[in-house]
């Protein structure tokens, strides 16, 4: 059954009892929460996702629970639990859904060593994937959000799951994280997108989450073949510039951005090497999203690169 087929009341009830098993292919997550806004945000963001029967195997058991402050006047907070164990400091309750998303990212990154887990956005077109590594401030999420509103498929905005045996990429196609000015930029660029309310004063500033495109969600089980690694760099007023980047240096960057590179040892080295072998590596400077989409489309059609 899809999330969109549940009423809000049903979702609230399922969440309260910890009976919501969300299919986040290739994972299944059991979610428990007593916070009503989480039910609403799940309905808004995960409408196209399936649920699983109550006695299914769940890869992760997570809860987001409201805590009242010790003193009556303290604002209520939410805390993330992984399998009954509180993890991370509590945050204001209006950040509860964001906390769920961040917590899920952590679950996947810390416990999925069947993959090489790379901190990168991945989008795909014609079966070929563009990997945007997650160097801070690079603007990968903004670029990713723009591309998926213009015909590119979303695999993930944060976690690229690289299958080391077959050299293909998977993603969970979950909501895209946007921050600060990117929120309005994307709203202007693609007025049809569905977003949560903006939440201010998080550690990353103001954030909002963007619903993944239905088409992308329906294709979540299809892997993509790495074709390009693009290091984005937003520079105000800059014309679009795509320059070749050293493969060896891109290798080091991908290795650094992989959460579990060290664990995999020689296999990790070979996996990143294989990924780089298959990819053209670029540095991309831009200021306007329309320019960026043009360049990426050009890459895909073989007009560039």
């Amino acid at each position: 059954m899809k999330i969109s087929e549940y009423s809000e009341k049903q979702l609230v009830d399922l969440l309260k009892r910890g009976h919501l098993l969300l299919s986040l292919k290739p994972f299944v997550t059991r979610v428990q929460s007593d916070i009503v806004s989480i039910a609403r945000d799940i309905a808004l963001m995960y409408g196209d996702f399936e649920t699983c029967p109550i006695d299914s195997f769940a890869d992760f058991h997570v809860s987001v629970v409201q805590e009242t402050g010790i003193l009556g006047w303290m604002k209520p907070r939410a805390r993330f639990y992984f399998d009954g164990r509180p993890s991370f400091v509590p945050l204001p309750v209006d950040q509860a859904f964001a906390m769920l998303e961040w917590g899920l990212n952590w679950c996947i990154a810390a416990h999925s060593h069947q993959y090489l887990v790379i901190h990168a956005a991945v989008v795909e077109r014609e079966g070929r994937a563009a990997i945007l590594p997650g160097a801070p401030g690079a603007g990968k999420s903004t670029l990713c959000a723009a591309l998926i509103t213009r015909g590119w498929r979303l695999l993930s905005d944060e976690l690229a799951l690289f299958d080391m045996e077959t050299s293909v990429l998977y993603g969970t196609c979950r909501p895209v994280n946007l921050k600060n000015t990117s929120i309005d930029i994307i709203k202007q660029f693609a007025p049809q997108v569905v977003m949560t309310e903006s939440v201010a004063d998080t550690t990353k500033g103001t954030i909002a989450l963007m619903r993944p495109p239905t088409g992308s969600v329906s294709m979540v089980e299809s892997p993509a073949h790495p074709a390009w690694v693009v290091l984005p760099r937003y520079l105000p007023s800059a014309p679009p510039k795509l320059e070749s980047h050293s493969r060896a240096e891109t290798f080091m960057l991908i290795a650094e951005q992989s959460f579990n590179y060290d664990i995999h040892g020689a296999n990790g080295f070979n996996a990143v090497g294989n990924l780089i072998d298959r990819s053209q590596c670029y540095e991309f400077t831009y200021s306007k999203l329309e320019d960026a989409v043009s360049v990426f489309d050009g890459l895909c059609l073989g007009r560039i690169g």
Partner: protein
Amino acid sequence: MPEREREHKSIQWTVPSSDSILLRVWDDGLTVVYNDVSGDTHLLSPVAGEILCLLKSVSHSSESLLLELEEAFSAQDKQSALDAIETVLSELENINLVSSAQN
């Protein structure tokens, strides 16, 4: 024979446990290396990468390395080329990729 010259000939450099060293090099010559013994990954300059590659198959003195790398050092006089090679070797030794032994 002057002492330095003796050194360039007498110290042999090798890659211990050669099977534990994995290398990849692409167009620009920059080399990435993985050392399975230490678990470290390194990015090496083209010259350092070539030296490591040569030492993986057989041990060399800095002089014999210079013979193999003539092209890379064609613009330099012999002594400064040898010094450059020794600097690279010493750095590679610091990161546990090569080791030296007196002949």
